[in-house]
């Protein structure tokens, strides 16, 4: 708890100081890395608790199936289950809060990098020395790379999905409360539709990349067949077919944002972990499967909200 409080304190401090100067930017970057580490650690604890809860549920089921179950043992395990469920809720809240702050920090870093890139670009038009221009262009490239790292694959949903799940318009007699809930549901529906559009767009982009790669692979095979090749002629050196080069941090950022979204939709299981990432390259095929799954879940959730509205 202490760690969380100090983390929160630093977030606030850094959030205020980001636009200040280069040193502050470096501090914010370092803090961003630290925060990423904390997020991963907290998520790992959450996953471990979920595994414990599942295994507890399995042993309860197994005991119940016995002809003569041990009631005191069952009571003990059920009580463990209640404690674990509460711990998971607390841990989930903690993860949500840290991630929310992490998203804010990423957004601020994104803005800071954009500001730096804009000001450096303006400088290049005023300089005459080719050496200095080259130096500044190098800096622009570095900031552009950093900015890419801060761009999430898809943003989290701003509303609380647990609230949506608990809403029932049919049971509402108070017209004001009904109007508020209706508004909440409609806004949620609009946001889900927007996220669905983003995910669909990304899936189409990568589907097109994969299609092009597969066709390229066939074409290269055909032309290789008809010629003698003393050395490998596959474009991209040792890059295997169906893979694209991605920056490791950028990739983990993308995966984390998708994982967050799936968690918000209450999808458990490590769907993100199925995507193969090797040697700085990611498998497009598995990434597409993940995007398709996310798209399906969002579409289902959209229907779920629509049903509530009806």
């Amino acid at each position, binding site marked *: 708890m202490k760690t969380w409080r100090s983390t929160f304190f630093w977030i606030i401090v850094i959030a205020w100081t980001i636009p200040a100067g280069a040193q502050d930017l470096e501090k914010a970057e370092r803090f961003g890395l630290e925060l990423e580490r904390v997020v991963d650690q907290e998520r790992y604890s959450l996953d471990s608790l979920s595994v414990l809860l599942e295994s507890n549920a399995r042993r309860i089921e197994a005991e119940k199936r016995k002809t003569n179950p041990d009631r005191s043992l069952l009571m003990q395990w059920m009580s463990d289950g209640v404690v674990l469920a509460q711990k998971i809720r607390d841990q989930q809240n903690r993860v949500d809060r840290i991630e929310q702050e992490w998203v804010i920090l990423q957004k601020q870093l994104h803005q800071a990098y954009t500001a730096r890139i804009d000001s450096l670009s303006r400088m290049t038009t005023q300089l005459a020395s080719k050496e200095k221009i080259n130096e500044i262009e190098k800096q622009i490239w570095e900031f552009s790379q950093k900015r890419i790292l801060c761009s999430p694959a898809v943003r989290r949903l701003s509303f609380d999905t647990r609230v949506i799940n608990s809403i029932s318009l049919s049971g509402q007699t108070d017209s004001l409360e009904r109007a508020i809930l209706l508004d909440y549901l409609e806004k949620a529906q609009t946001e889900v539709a927007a996220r669905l559009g983003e995910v669909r767009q990304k899936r189409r982009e990568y589907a097109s990349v994969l299609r092009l790669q597969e066709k390229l692979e066939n074409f290269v*095979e055909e032309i290789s067949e008809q010629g003698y090749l003393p050395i*490998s002629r596959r474009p991209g050196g040792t890059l295997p077919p169906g893979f694209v080069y991605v920056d490791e941090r950028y990739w983990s950022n993308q995966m984390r944002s998708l994982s967050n979204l799936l968690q918000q939709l209450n999808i458990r299981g490590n769907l993100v972990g199925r995507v193969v990432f*090797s040697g*700085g390259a990611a498998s497009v095929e598995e990434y597409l499967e993940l995007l398709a799954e996310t798209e399906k879940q969002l579409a289902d959730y959209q229907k779920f909200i629509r049903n509530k509205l009806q």
Partner: protein
Amino acid sequence: MKIFSQSRISGWLVWSLLFSAGAAAGEFDLKLSPEAGYFGRAGDVDTRRDFGLITGFVTAGYRFRQTRQHGQIQIRFRPEQYGVHAATTVVNINGNAEYSRQWNTTQWGLSLQQRRMNFYRPGGRLFADITQVALNGQWQDAGPWSTEIQLAYFARHLSGDTRHALTTPVAVFRARYRKNENSSFSFGFYTESFKLSVPHRPATPRVNRGWGIGPELNFEYRGSQIVSFSYLAVFRKSDNIDDKGHEHRVSLLLGRTFGDRYSLFLFADYTFRQLSDHKNAVRDLYYYSSNNESRFYLKFGYDLTKSLEAFMKAGYVRYELYGDNSDFFGSHVTLGISAEL
């Protein structure tokens, strides 16, 4: 016997890889791709104009991918018939396997290729056995730079109307600069040594040895479209006969998809050689690099379904035939269907 032992060794390596790959979860694929169309040829082999090209291939393969390793094994059979009246037939059988593994920032790959090419033309025949073993290594720096090394051993044995054997160990050292996730530029240094023998040559010398070195440049863009350009220059010197020369090779590959169904690819490969014309030098002992052709291909595809593609190909190809001072060249336009089963 030498050919046989080489085939056996590479065959053994291919099967070893197949068994080790079998332990991992992977997938099998089978492809069929018949095509037919017009072929117009001219040249030293047959000056008559002739029509008709029937070709196609069958490919059976297995591939697997895991977090830090991937592998692929493939066998391909491709018969080609050029012309009707004075037909030239080429039968290609190609087996290849590759395996790659990553350790931290290092990636290693091994690839093997064994190929048999039977060339039947009016009044003659030529058989080629080609073996290629290549080892690739790549070191990725934390920044945009990576270093690559490719070591390859290439052996080609010709039989039939002519007897000719070439072995070429090749090493390429390369530095790659990755500008972003889509584009990269690399420059490298190519080295080779070669041994060429013509055992039934009536006069000596019957063997030629030598070496070659030269720079290599590559540019590549892989995004919504593909652009790949490479240039290789090799300067060669022979030990046994007084021939030296240089060779320049330029390749360009372009590809892109249009909408959900159309695709277009273009490949051009042009080799230019300048050989000295010394009185002691004889053509059949000149060294020809392992690539013996210039070619141009254009392929336009339309996806009928997810696994069925109709395509049109147009191209020009020029083979240098060894030993008999002749070329085989012509242009073609074909229509075909490619199916993945």
